[in-house]
């Protein structure tokens, strides 16, 4: 009997939908599309705000795997060996080795009087091979003034934008910045007892602190400034081949004993805990907003189906009167609800994956600390489609059931 009820329910639903007012159907589907977008886009933007930051750190700083100095060492011992091991792994596309040393940058010393406040900033100066660094992180593209370093550069430095007063939007207590410094300015780099006068070749702008608060020099010269000639570096950022899981490369390095001499982390391992907590919090917030959206959609469908069933109560009574099973009539309303939810979700899916996701990839939202994208993983999206369809089915079934269970003759005669 049940399949017959489904058959009849489908028969009635198809005809009710086919001959329904286009405006009404369009409006209901529009509500479903908005609900779907509310479910997917709000949380997607919230998570994407952080994901943009995560992606930027991965792209510009850690790359896929980062090998760094152990906490009780001043650099990575046996670095040349580790670099050779990493470079020999088949899944590694490229790597960049960095020297890092806490330094003091000084500007305006040429004209400064003894009573003037010194124009200084503290920063890590990073010694890099410009070609390898750019090949792995592509930071040359972040240059907003001047040029990026070239392999033969000598006494040239590139500064992160947060080291310069003109690029700090607010006065941050405790953060000293260089005033009146631009491309071509001469500044001093103090590393330990060594002081070197260099020319600013370019300025990098990034939302990643590890880039914006750093200064970059060519490694061959920087090695001599810090007096390290054994080839030991402080960081090695490794880019893996497309489609390779960074954890596999991390594990391969650990298997070869790299872990005894350096910290080996994937970009995810290297994320600060606070970052992970914020992502979890935003996910939770997204879920909360989505839940509200889901309740609103359910109530909308409930009202639509209730009003529909109420105005059609006489016809529901007639159907029951001529022997149509009440279950078949209920199923017809369930089918109508499914239709609204599925079409609404399909339009929403097309909008999200056909337009919004590519749009935000091409035009990220310019948040102060990240370039926000829209994060909409397929499995999560389909889970939400499932949620929407399920809640819509329930919201459509209940009012239909309420009207259908009323006395048949009362329904036919319009009696209460």
């Amino acid at each position, binding site marked *: 009997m049940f399949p017959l009820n489904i058959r*009849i329910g489908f028969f009635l639903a198809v005809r009710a939908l086919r001959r329904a007012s286009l405006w009404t159907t369009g409006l209901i589907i529009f509500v479903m599309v908005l609900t779907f977008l509310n479910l997917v886009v709000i949380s997607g933007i919230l998570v994407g705000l952080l994901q943009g930051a995560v992606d930027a750190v991965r792209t510009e700083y850690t790359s896929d795997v980062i090998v760094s100095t152990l906490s009780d060492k001043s650099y990575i011992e046996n670095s040349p060996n580790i670099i050779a091991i990493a470079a020999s792994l088949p899944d590694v596309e490229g790597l960049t080795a960095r020297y890092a040393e806490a330094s003091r940058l000084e500007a305006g010393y040429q004209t400064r009087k003894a009573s003037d406040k010194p124009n200084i900033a503290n920063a890590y100066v990073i010694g890099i091979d410009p070609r390898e660094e750019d090949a792995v992180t592509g930071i040359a593209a972040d240059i907003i003034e001047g040029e990026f370093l070239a392999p033969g550069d000598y006494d040239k430095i590139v500064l992160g934008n947060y080291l310069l007063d003109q690029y700090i939007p607010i006065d941050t207590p405790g953060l000293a910045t260089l005033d009146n410094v631009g491309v071509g300015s001469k500044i001093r780099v103090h590393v330990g007892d060594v002081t070197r006068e260099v020319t600013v070749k370019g300025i990098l702008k990034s939302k990643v602190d590890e880039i914006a608060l750093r200064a970059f020099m060519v490694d061959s010269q920087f090695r001599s400034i810090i007096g390290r000639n054994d080839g030991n570096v402080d960081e090695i950022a490794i880019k893996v081949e497309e489609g390779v899981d960074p954890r596999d490369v991390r594990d391969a390095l650990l298997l070869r004993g790299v872990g005894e001499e350096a910290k080996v982390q994937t970009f995810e391992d290297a994320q600060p805990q606070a970052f992970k907590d914020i992502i979890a919090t935003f996910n939770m917030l997204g879920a909360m907003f989505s839940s509200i959206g889901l309740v609103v959609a359910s109530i909308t469908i409930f009202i639509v189906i209730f009003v529909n069933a109420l105005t059609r109560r006489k016809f529901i009574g007639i159907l029951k009167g001529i*022997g*149509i099973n009440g279950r078949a009539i209920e199923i017809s309303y369930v089918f109508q609800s499914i239709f609204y939810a599925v079409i609404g979700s399909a339009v929403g899916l097309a909008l999200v994956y056909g337009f919004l996701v590519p749009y935000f990839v091409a035009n990220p939202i310019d948040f102060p600390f990240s370039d926000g994208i829209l994060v909409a993983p397929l499995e999560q999206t389909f889970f939400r489609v499932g949620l929407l369809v399920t809640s819509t089915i329930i919201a459509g079934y209940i009012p239909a059931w309420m009207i259908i269970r009323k006395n048949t003759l009362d329904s036919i005669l319009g009696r209460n």
Partner: protein
Amino acid sequence: MIEVRNLKKTFVNGEIETPVLKGIDLKVADGEFIAIMGRSGAGKSTLLYQMSLLDEPTAGEILVDERYAHSMSESEKVQFRLSEFGYVFQDYALLPELTALENVALPLLMKGLGKMLSYHQARAALEKVGVGHRPNNLPSQLSGGEQQRVSIARAIAHNPKILFADEPTANLDNESSHAVLEIFRELHRKGQTIIMVTHEEEFATEAGKIVRIDDGRIVSVEADR
């Protein structure tokens, strides 16, 4: 075939009780054409609803094919209405979003007949009542008379044992009313049992038996007319 014994129906609204049927006894044999007449509020439609299992009497018994109606579950009654009864209502009671053909085919589909067979039977029923040329029209695209014919087609397509008609001509003009009555006459001639409520003397004379009701009681039965 259908028998009512001491049938009573009282409507209750809060503390107000309104007895509408006050003890009706009636037997309808196979193939009879009965007209139930009476003034407005006499209880004729209420009697029809009880006999056709659309409503529950307050007291008394209804036997259909020697089965007691009160012993049937709701789903059994639905099934009984589907397979044994046919209904023609005063306001046609067609589903507005279904075409004439679909309206007639629906009960057949509900009986489990295949789509081809249902539509075939539905088409034959429409032909029988003279609207076979407009199967794909929606009710809103048909005149009142045509809608009532479609309604009759729906009621007879599955060859019911009893055809119940509640004021089938009340909303129709004279020409359409006569056409509907002609269909009833033809159906009766072929052996269809018909129980019809009407307040129009002219149409009641078509029936083989007239049952007159007043104040919830049968006041006369004019048989073998």
